[in-house]
């Protein structure tokens, strides 16, 4: 009997088990490598940006880069001050937020507190469709529809201006703010609303005085993530805001943003490892640092300051 058992344990079944275990391990390893690709990508982005920018900063001092007020890397008389590009980026983003923050917040409050289940089922997919529209189409819209429209009201507006690019970008960002802020509002427990209603408050009062304060952290996070979107948006500003790096905060003028500059240079045929080629990586590094910090702050605000009920 005992003999029999030993024989069983070295039977082909066991051998098959070992093969099975090896196969399981191999599969797990392959899946892990796939998951690690996300980590590799992040490292590759940082490494490439730093590596190419390093060559750039051998020619250009950091002081000139951050304090210079002229950005003309492709000219004979080259200047490498990133300020004009940052100014353009911030101005278009500011215009976009001026549209997206109020509209997005109101839409979020409406979706979370006022809309019936049916309205929500219909309108949320529409917002998603809006997110899916390619940005180049919005660029066309800003350049050839919104700008001529604005020129009727404001005849001095140049054909390329940050105002129309920013406005269109704002509409594009509304769904992001609306959906993140709505999530935060819906996370506020029903009992708080019921308490408020029991005191005789209306829906609007409850939304404004109870739900919104309770969801502040989530709403602020939505705004910060929206800033990050606006800063990184490319095609709308590349098409409609102009290509000339100008140090101005006036939205009625045209000015290049960081992203528009990268597009402009990439459209031309620049030799590899030239200073112009390296300059788009330096600009990209600044852009990456800006969006990364906004994203991180957004996540921290959302996680850390979430009210616990």
């Amino acid at each position, binding site marked *: 009997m005992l003999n029999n058992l030993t024989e069983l344990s070295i039977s082909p079944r066991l051998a098959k088990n070992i093969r099975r275990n090896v196969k399981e391990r191999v599969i797990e390893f392959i899946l892990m490598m*796939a998951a690690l*690709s996300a980590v590799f990508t992040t490292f590759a982005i940082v490494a490439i940006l730093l590596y190419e920018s390093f060559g750039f900063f051998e020619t250009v001092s950091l002081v000139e880069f951050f304090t210079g007020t002229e950005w003309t890397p492709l000219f004979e008389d080259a200047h490498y001050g990133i300020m004009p590009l940052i100014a353009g980026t911030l101005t278009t983003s500011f215009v976009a937020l001026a549209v997206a923050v109020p509209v997005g917040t*109101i*839409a979020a409050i409406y979706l979370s507190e006022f809309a019936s289940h049916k309205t929500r089922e219909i309108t949320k997919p529409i917002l998603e469709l809006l997110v899916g529209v390619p940005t180049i189409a919005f660029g066309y819209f800003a350049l050839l529809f919104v700008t001529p429209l604005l020129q009727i009201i404001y005849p001095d507006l140049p054909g390329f201006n940050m105002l129309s690019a920013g406005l269109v970008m704002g509409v594009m960002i*509304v769904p992001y703010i609306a959906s993140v802020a709505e999530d935060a509002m819906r996370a506020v427990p029903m009992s708080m609303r019921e308490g408020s209603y029991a005191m005789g408050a209306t829906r609007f009062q409850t939304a404004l005085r109870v739900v919104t304060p309770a969801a502040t952290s989530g709403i602020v996070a939505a705004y910060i993530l929206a800033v990050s979107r606006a800063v990184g948006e490319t095609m709308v500003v590349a098409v409609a805001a102009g290509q000339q790096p100008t140090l101005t905060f006036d939205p009625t003028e045209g000015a290049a943003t960081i992203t528009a500059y990268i597009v402009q240079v990439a459209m031309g045929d620049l030799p590899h490892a030239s200073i112009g080629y390296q300059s788009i990586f330096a600009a990209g590094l600044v852009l*990456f640092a800006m969006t990364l910090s906004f994203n991180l702050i957004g996540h921290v605000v959302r996680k850390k300051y979430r009210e616990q009920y």
Partner: protein
Amino acid sequence: MADTQSKKASVLADLDAVRSMIRRHKFNDLVFAGIGLIALMIGLLTLLTLFIDLVMDGYPRFNLQFFSDFPSRRAGSAGLLSAWVGSLLVMAVTFLSAVPVGVAAGLYLEEYAPKNWFSDLIEINVSNLAGVPSIIYGLLALGLFVYGLDLGQSILTAGLTLGLLILPTVIVSTREAIRGIPVAIREAAYAVGATKWQVVSDHVVKYSQGGILTGVIIGMSRAIGETAPIITIGALTFIAFLPPAPVTDVAPFLNFEWLSSAFTVLPIQMFNWLSRPDHAFHINAAATGAIIILVTLLMNGTAIYLRYKIRKNIKW
């Protein structure tokens, strides 16, 4: 006597005040609901205006010739042939690179990864990548694929770049789809002696197919419309030839030369036409834009409908 009467009057006056206050607040409610609905509709209205504007501007070009002509110096005879073929081939590479890796990564994170710093690291990276502007992916591809790995400004480079770009979308949707599957299903499979991979491949993947597909469609529709990263890798805008055909009539019937071919895609072609000062080219840009929007709306609509169906049908 007079005293009680004046009391009664003041109570009535108070009651009136309260009633008018209630009316006022109810009216505020109504006003805000109206404003909220308008705020919601701004997006839809913009989308409608945009689409109608594109169709009205571009309608002279909606004919078969527009799809079968190469780009040209003359706006009237310029077409989309190289652009839509390019888009199709780039999408094929994107699909084949992003879907297997994304689904595998999602499976690992949900089914295999131990809950420790290691899985946290991956998760932080995935959510971070989702927030990286698309043009940064273009710079990565320019440094890594074009010059680092010497793949050149080819279809392969563009497809891989867009693959990386939509990877977070595929991973996140895979994870969400998997999370909906109850533990009991897995336990039942383990109980009859299945290995982990058997459980995952025969049950987890199978039941989450619909959710994964939704994410893949959304990701692909985003990739079709992406312009910035493709411009950044230095794609040419004037392509008057087609890449070598992927399928040939001589053995082995498959030909991979197209992977290293130069190319253009729909959004790049549109951007090129849009950046010309000549208004005749803007008509071409509008027609292209209407086509791109139509395709992405159809894909996104399909994905949303699919998700709606799945949510309705599955009752564990």
